[in-house]
């Protein structure tokens, strides 16, 4: 049960990290578009 909770927490953390990376990629593309 505890292992499951830890897995869910890690999955959520990875989701947040993926969101951060996606945001950075979008902005890099936006800057390239502006240039």
């Amino acid at each position, binding site marked *: 049960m505890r292992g499951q909770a830890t897995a869910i927490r890690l999955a959520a*953390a990875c*989701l947040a990290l993926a969101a951060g990376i996606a945001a950075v990629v*979008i902005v890099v593309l936006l800057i390239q578009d502006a240039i």
Partner: protein
Amino acid sequence: MRFRRTAILGLAAVAVAVALPAAAFAHAALVRATPSASGLVNTPPRQVTLQFTEPVEPRFAIVSVTDANGDQKTAKAPRRSPADRNTLVVPLERLAHGWYLVYWRVISVDGHPVRGAFTFAVGPNPGPAPQFVIPSTSETAATPKLIAARWAALVSLMAAIGLFVLRIAVARPLVTRVAGSRLRRVTLAFGIASAVALVAIPVYFLLATSEFALRSFWDFGDVFPLVRASAFGRGWLDLELVFALFAGAAAIAIWLDRPERRARSVAALIALGGALAAAGATLLVPGTSGHPGQTAPRGLSLAFDWFHLASGSIWVGGLIGLLVLAASQPAAQRVAALVVCVPRFSNVALASVLVLIASGIGSAIKQLPTLATLWETSYGQTLLVKIGLLAAALLLAAVNLLRTTPRFRASDLRPELGPPAASLLRKLVGGEVLLVVGAVLGAAVLTSLAPPSKALASIGHANARVGPGRVDSVVQKNGYRLAFRVTPNRAAVPNSFEVGVTRNGRAVRGADVTVNFAMLDMSMGEQEYRLPERSPGRYGRAEPALVMVGHWGLEFRVAPRGGSPFTVVLVDKANG
């Protein structure tokens, strides 16, 4: 010691007074027109071509070509030249001999409308130039509706990021240090600010797009496809997306954070990294789709803008969070909670304000062409109001830093200092929030204003400001006395421009005097005339040079015979 700190803060307040955030001259400007401005062509042109400094979207462009009677002569809507993205082509009906007025309004990549006008003649005998009436259309992004929407989007976005930083970093130790204290209300405030931003951002870019394309806001079917047609729309659409990613990542980071444990878990650290990366990316978007993204060197401009926005967010979000924190704690824990949070936030706020000032000054040094732009244009005047509000907020912040924070620190040993300090803090922080939110409104106006004309930069410092009405003005320059007279100084009628040049009371004869007319309120072709000597030392001529109401830069270049030439600039306000 206290004096030194006060002095440092005083200096900081003065520095704010010169902190200037955004570029003013990064907008679409007309570089070439065919037929040329004020030019005469012997063959009636089939089309008007307008070449700008950057790509412009034809669906947002208004171009009218009218004859002396005001009749429209365009045959079709403007389209982009297949050969050049920066050029618009407007097909014309067959033109008769005579004079024509071209009036244009385009949307710059940062979403600002820019307009201009010029005349040309079809000859060989076009006759005398008529007095054209400049068409009036809404060509400002500074309408109250747009400013309110932009302000709501900016303030909620900044508050959300600042509240997240306060919750996750500044106020976190509160839970372990003060038993019974809670951070739930700060989290709730972050959620509300995020929700407001997620609604306000699309409302703003849809409003702006509908206004620029002259369509109704409610006509979503027509307006939505146009959003991606402009760089401005694409930028704000990306802002919505990136901010949504931030809000999601931040919500996960807060959910995973266990403030009752001193050390953060690996999962919490990973989520925090994602949320901070998304926050950093979010803060880069407004600059990329605004002035800084168009101002060279782009990297430096974007860096200044990012630091300006990031420090402003931490300041304004942190202040709101502090108010929420004070109001949400049970009465018994309130002072203890503030004792933990206020000194920590003071340090962060001081650093933020210093970065805010430094990045503002950096932008100012790089971007403002003349200091006079500050008080001579509505752009500069808005900037002064914004600086005034920030300076007032900084004064309140200084009182907090020098009075309230030390009392909280001392309340460990003298508990009676705590409650009055908490009461003072709530009043001061409340005032500070109002002032900073007002300053963000100033920023919303500022970033919505049409830019001052490039002519302002090229004419340099004005020797005198004259008009409206008849001008009788004397300027001393290089030992010469110049008496200027403009009558009747009204737009769109022939005006007499005269300058009497004397030196040591004696008329200066045989000088070469030319005058250049530059419209300062919008981008127009400049005109230049030589002023013949009418009587000894008096040079003048009558011309309908002030073709529209507004501010004009009159640059008189005087070359005395045998003396060194010099220039006198008058900024003239001409009424109708």
